[in-house]
């Protein structure tokens, strides 16, 4: 008789714990870093050199100096070749390095550099850089590299950028729900929008 009771208690415990795990579970994929594949670029652009900390030999250039569209467009954009050349034509010291030579080859041929997308969301997703930059950098005065880093990871330590975050829907939502929405009709600014159509197109 007692054996049955003990068994039942065990059973109940099992079910309850499994259930509460399922209800509470934060999917491991959604918070952990998820390193993307290495992407071959036509020119191995050293982000660390341009944006890295001065202590590590970087020049601490603001992300938006080159990715200039991030604050006013849904895409961050790749700078036009003109911009690279604008600086590099007056930096004689590295003028003859292979990467810069390649850069000038493109310039002379008037061909855009065929950069590959590193953070390539599925086509039905609308991610608006402008809103995030406006919100975090301009409204909340977060450092640019931190704000960009929420999604792009620590780019300033990389050469060619590589995806660090999973960029899955749950990962996005986990941030959008930081302050829990108790009311789906609300557009409270404490959490990101909760609408499907905010991101799905």
């Amino acid at each position, binding site marked *: 008789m007692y054996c049955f009771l003990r068994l039942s208690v065990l059973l109940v415990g099992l079910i309850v714990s499994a259930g509460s795990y399922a209800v509470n579970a934060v999917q491991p994929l959604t918070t952990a870093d998820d390193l993307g594949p290495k992407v071959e670029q036509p020119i191995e652009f050293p982000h660390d050199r341009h944006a890295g900390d001065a202590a590590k030999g970087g020049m601490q250039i603001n992300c938006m100096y080159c990715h200039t569209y991030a604050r006013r467009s849904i895409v961050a954009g790749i700078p036009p070749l003109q911009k690279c050349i604008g600086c590099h034509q007056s930096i004689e010291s590295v003028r003859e390095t292979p990467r810069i030579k390649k850069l000038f080859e493109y310039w002379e041929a008037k061909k855009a550099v065929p950069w590959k997308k590193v953070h390539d969301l599925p086509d039905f997703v609308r991610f608006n850089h402008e*809103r995030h930059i406006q919100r975090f950098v301009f409204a909340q005065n977060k450092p640019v590299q931190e704000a960009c880093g929420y999604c792009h990871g620590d780019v300033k330590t990389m050469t060619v950028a590589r995806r660090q975050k999973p960029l899955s829907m749950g990962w996005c939502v986990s941030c959008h729900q930081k302050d829990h929405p108790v009311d789906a009709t609300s557009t409270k600014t404490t959490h990101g929008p909760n*609408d499907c159509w905010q991101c799905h197109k």
Partner: protein
Amino acid sequence: MSITNLLENWSDFRQQHPSEDRPHREYKWAMSIDLDACTGCNACSVACYAENNLPVVGKEKFAHGHSHHWIRIERYWDNDGREFADQGAQFLPMLCQQCESAPCETVCPVGATNHTADGLNSQVYNRCVGSRYCNANCPYKARYFNWYDYPTTDNVWPEPMNQQLNPDVTVRGKGVMEKCTFCVQRLTVAKSNARSEGRSVLDGEVQTACQQVCPTGAISFGNLVDPSAKVGKQWKQQQVDLNKDKQAKDVTESAAKLRGYRILEELRTYPSVMYLEQLRESAI
């Protein structure tokens, strides 16, 4: 977090929608269509094809009822046996009514269609599994299913026609339900711009494709929450209340001169599209 959240905010989660207690806070997109101004010219429909990447299905598939026109012009006659249609036709642009209490939303098994904070009836193409329950339950039959794979196997946009496709709107593959979005891609941009400037979207700042093209200006579109919006004024003047399924016009004799009505309101769908009745002169 979860069960405590559920219990703590129980009353919030039990809140029904639409309700007077919880009005839309910032945006409630709505439309009004003046049937007296609508001439039935189909410009809105073609504009919608251009804006929203609608596939042209061709004669055979059209014949089978596989057409995609998110906004369609319906043409009604007086059916009282008269010899001639001597009072003309009644044209009615029918599009997704963006119901506040949309019958399609509750029945979708995967939750691909939901209600947004802006009062839109969203349809997430990628989430859709194609059970088509939503269209079964839509009294207006304003939803359109991708019966075939139009972009690929059907090659609806042969090179270079595909260059015309609007990159802001997904091209839907087979097996997905789709419908009018009130040009949500335009709304999102307008909202984003307004937010960056720390304000709400102004009336007239954003237009739907059908509204923008309409030669007679029969379609007005805007934010019902905004008291200065034309749409809101129209709704108010016509005494059409978003959250009611019977309007003044249906109830009181004195309101009989109002033109505003919503279609199949008695099904309690609370549509976001108000129509203004067509008029006909009685002196001739």
